[in-house]
């Protein structure tokens, strides 16, 4: 009954989502993971990068609001903040994470802990 009801009731299209997931890319080198997050319209003040219980969380609030007198004619972006959560597990040294924000792109370097780095053993 619930499913039938859900099929027959047109869902309300959310006009303003609470948050949007940013376009992002994760890559890996021997020593670190690299996370690139696209956050257009986000400045340093509106950006929060936190690590809590092995979850990296990126929250970016848009730095720009239309000045008085500007009326929107056509919108393809939302004003909702960007949020992204990435489970790091035990592989990342959280205390050595480095972040850089430039031109709306956040680049995070997530260094691996010593235990998971590839190690070459020299044969004597």
């Amino acid at each position, binding site marked *: 009954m619930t499913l039938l009801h859900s099929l027959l009731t047109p869902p309300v*299209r959310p006009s303003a989502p609470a948050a949007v997931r940013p376009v992002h890319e994760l890559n890996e080198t021997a020593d670190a993971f690299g996370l690139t997050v696209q*956050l257009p*319209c*986000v400045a340093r003040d509106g950006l929060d990068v936190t690590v809590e219980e092995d979850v990296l969380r990126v929250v970016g609030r848009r730095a720009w609001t239309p000045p008085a007198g500007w009326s929107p004619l056509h919108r393809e972006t939302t004003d909702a903040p960007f949020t992204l959560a990435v489970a790091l597990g035990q592989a990342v040294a959280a205390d050595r994470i480095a972040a850089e924000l430039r031109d*709306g792109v956040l680049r995070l370097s997530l260094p691996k802990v010593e235990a998971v780095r590839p190690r070459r053993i020299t044969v004597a």
Partner: protein
Amino acid sequence: MHQLRYPTSLRSVFPVARSGARLSPWSGLEAEMDRLFAAALAAEGPATFPVDVYADASATHVRAALPGCRREDLRIELADGQLTLSVMPPAPAAGDPAPATATPAHSEPIARRSLAVPEDTAEDQVAATYVDGVLTVTLPRRPATPPRRIEIRAA
């Protein structure tokens, strides 16, 4: 026990909400199929990017989300009432050795978007800024010229 089938024809009439409790059990599969179809049917060519358009008393403002671009790779062209925003592939720096395959002078943009601009745009006063990965193009309006009255000479 009846197995409730999800008719595909209904799907187009009642689009599945992106979030909330009314999410169909098939939404994941549907989203994936939509994505595959979109990818298969997508036209070849440069990528696109989202654009917002605002207006105030004196100008139209176009804001394009283009994170991580170099200013020199952004191209703004205004011709025949069309504003074209392009992101060009990065040009090799002056000091770099010439690549094996020389980049043609008119290389294809990575991303491109064209918009019709208002007829009364003062084309010589268009200005642009690039802040926090957002390109803002300001298209001022020409002040309305009063209609010119033409006297009829006595023959």
